[in-house]
């Protein structure tokens, strides 16, 4: 019997912040190439789970494997495979959009970073503001820049935390197209959103959280 490659494998994972358990004994799997819709009310643990998968933080208990790699013990090997678009944009406010992306490109060791950056900024509709500091950007423009950064990384697992927030209708349509494009390249997308119908259109699996626990969606 052929074994199915797993993009995500959570075995009884929990995460505690002080006295509060943000995630509690959560287990689930996601096959490589399939996408997951993550739903739940504010504070249900969606962002915490995405940060655990991204290796920005680690489980207090349990084992989390991403693309078969232990999220804590093998994080150096795992990090290049995972991309996160979060509420925090990870950008330097005083650098321009182009400088921020160029910095990432150089850290990734991309050849000809300037042409890659120009191409991505053009694609995300930010080329005219390439030299403006991010501090002057609107929330929607920051989101577009964060998506450009994700695309540059070409991850195997893309984690999108409320990707439609702050985007205008054209931006939302573009985001849907980008998610489908990533999926077409074999990327597993984990999509956390309150827009359930839209999310279900774009994903095959669903995980609903309440109080940090996995529950059946109502």
């Amino acid at each position, binding site marked *: 019997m052929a074994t199915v490659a797993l993009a995500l494998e959570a075995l009884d994972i929990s995460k505690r912040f002080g006295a509060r358990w943000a995630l509690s004994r959560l287990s689930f799997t996601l096959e490589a190439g399939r996408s997951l819709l993550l739903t739940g009310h504010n504070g249900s643990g969606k962002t915490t789970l995405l940060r655990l998968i991204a290796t*920005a933080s*680690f489980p207090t208990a349990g084992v989390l494997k991403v693309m078969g790699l232990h999220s804590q013990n093998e994080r150096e090997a795992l*990090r290049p495979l995972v991309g996160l678009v979060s509420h925090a944009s990870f950008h330097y406010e005083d650098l321009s959009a182009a400088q921020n992306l160029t910095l990432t490109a150089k*850290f990734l060791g991309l050849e000809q970073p300037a042409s890659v950056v120009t191409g991505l900024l053009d694609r995300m509709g930010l080329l005219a503001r390439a030299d403006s500091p991010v501090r002057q950007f609107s929330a929607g423009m920051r989101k577009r820049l964060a998506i450009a950064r994700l695309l540059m990384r070409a991850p195997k697992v893309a984690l999108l935390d409320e990707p439609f927030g702050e985007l205008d209708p054209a931006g939302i349509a573009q985001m849907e197209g980008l998610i489908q494009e990533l999926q077409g390249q074999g990327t597993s997308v984990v999509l956390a959103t309150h827009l359930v119908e839209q999310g279900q259109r774009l994903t095959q699996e669903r995980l609903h959280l309440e109080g940090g626990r996995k529950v059946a969606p109502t």
Partner: protein
Amino acid sequence: MKRPSLLGAAWLVLKKDWQIEWRTRARLTAIIFFSLATLLLFSFAMGPDIVTLRAHAPGYLWLGLLFASVLSLGESFRVEAENQALTGLVLTPVEPRAIFIGKVLGNASLLFVLSLVLLPVAVALYDVDLGRDPLSLVLVLFLGCVGISAPGTVYSAISANARARDVMLPLLLFPVLVPLLLAAVSATKFTLQPDPQEQLGSWLKLLTAFDLIYLSVGFLLFPKVAEED
């Protein structure tokens, strides 16, 4: 696609810090005016006795640098805390030790520039003679700035997300820097004033040892600081 080496990544972090500083010039401007005001206040507090001022000039110079370093180090990690940029670097992924090396060099270079700006001010206010042993003086300033920046980079990263970060950084940093301050002030004194017992070499060795110890400790500890549990 070839990722940069540890030193290559540290160089990129350093260049990034210089780019941010060049775009805003906020940090350098603030610490220059702050330390100028500090040196001026010491001068007023001690009165017009030029002999006393000259004798205490090395102490005033290093206290000015030390106080300014708190502003500089705090700002250095404020930009990393904004938008969780430090987390973004770690996830890119950039080796946390490369971030440490780059940040130490960035902080030290800024303080070193400040120290060079303060030298002519010390001449004007305290009538010190920079011509006695200028090369040793520059070496002392460089070693002292690295010595402040090595533990300062670790502590400013620790305190960047703390509630009372402005208070926490000097509380953590100043006790650690007592040996460095002692060595830097003494070494500076022997580059500006006669050194009949040739003590400068000993103080330079102490400064170098302090730098190496705290660079090593920071290099080992920084990954724990840069990454969440």
